């Protein structure tokens, strides 16, 4: 093997490494957690990277990390809706609507769990660590 051959093989190996990072690395971190399709009936959530997407009318969706307990207030069409994040779950705790169906929806913990305050134009959906479902039909 000549020096040139060694250079070519070396370049190929370097390319392997960079392609690996390019394909499998990055912010999604697909090597952890495993799949979570559907969510089982058992309560609780063990995945560290569960996030929920909050959509407010007229604005792009934003994600909140369910790994950090706390309260989030979002301004909807009618006024503020409050979301409580606790033990890797999220729920509506206040909304200016009359029917309060968003609050009655209770805790959202598993991928695909969804609640919305339609009068106020605020929706929350739990996304999985590796988002396995593209849409929820209801």
């Amino acid at each position, binding site marked *: 093997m000549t020096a040139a*051959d060694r250079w*070519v093989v070396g370049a190929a190996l370097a390319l392997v490494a960079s392609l690996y990072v390019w394909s499998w690395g990055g912010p999604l971190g697909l090597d952890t957690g495993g799949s979570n399709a*559907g969510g089982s009936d058992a309560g609780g959530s063990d995945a560290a990277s569960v996030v929920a997407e909050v959509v407010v009318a007229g604005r792009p969706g934003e994600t909140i990390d369910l790994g950090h307990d706390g309260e989030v207030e979002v301004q909807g069409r009618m006024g503020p809706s409050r979301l409580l994040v606790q033990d890797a779950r999220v729920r509506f705790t206040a909304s200016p609507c*009359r029917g309060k169906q968003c609050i009655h*929806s*209770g805790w959202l913990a598993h991928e695909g769990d969804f609640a919305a305050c339609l009068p106020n134009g605020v929706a929350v959906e739990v996304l999985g660590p590796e988002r396995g479902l*593209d849409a*929820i*039909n209801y």
Partner: protein
Amino acid sequence: MRASRAERIAGRQAQSAAVLLLGALVLTGCGARPTPVHEFQFFAMGTLVEVTLANVEHTAAQEARRAIEGLFRRAEDDWDPWRPGALARFNRRLAGGRPFAVDADLLPLLQGSSELSRRSHGLFDPAIGRLTELWGFHRNEPRGRPPEPEAIAALMRRPPAMSELSWNGREVQGTNPAVQIDLGAYAKGYAVDRAIAHLRGVGIANALVNAGGDLRAIGRRGERPWRIGIRRPHSAGVLATLELGEDESVLTSGDYERFFMYDGKRYHHILDPRTGYPAQGAMAATVISRGAAEGDAAATALVVAGPSEWQAVAHDMGIAQAMLIDGLGRIHLTEALRPRLRFTIDPERGIPMDPKP
């Protein structure tokens, strides 16, 4: 001389191997690259509309976004009888009792929904606009108490039905003053179909359009099919998941979508055109169909049909894949749908009933 020739051959072999290796890596590298997916959402037609496009360039996705949002905005005004638009004008003229020509845009919705109403044995019937209004289900926030029984009885004396529209080409005449059109169980599905048709027209072959759970998907999400979760009634969770074929719609109607409680009793928005009251006997129906509009109408009809009639109605509406969850939480499935669903609960045991509403 010989040694150097052997060396050259070995060198060439190593070079070929390296080139092959490089080629293979580049190919697998491209193959494993995540599919470019564009997602956008907006509120329209009283719900959250979510659109996902796979394998689409950024500019094309932005253009599609503008077009689809525009389409839903127009639909919101024109197909909602309680907004100032084409359907509100139609209802006013219908109430006048004289024949009149129907807007070209509205005509296919009225004719398509009339045909589906006929095939549903009248269990899906958009002619019940006055009933919807009487119950207060036309508002985002229901009125909170049932109407007076006398008011319902008065409207039901001559039950409103699509069959009481008298057609003459594009002209229509109302023959029953109780008839006012409410396309609530059809228009969202129809808008989803229109959005999919638009995407196809501009060359987008892989897309999912989801209008508040009424959804249709074409193509695939890159290397895999589109995956859908069907929501569990009366809960935020997922009941079952399924993978969609190249062009399929999934539509569910449920008594949990819009309702109010009064005196400890639940009153939901799926009204039985035969009685004038919320349908009894089923809490949800899910339908897999080609088009979303037909699935939307069928899902409503199956909830009204209930456990005894749902299979006959599905058959007559051309729906082979359907699921009904009856009032006790038991799950009924057509044979064609059963093998496609992956349940998160034991389907034989049904939905655990929550004592709370």
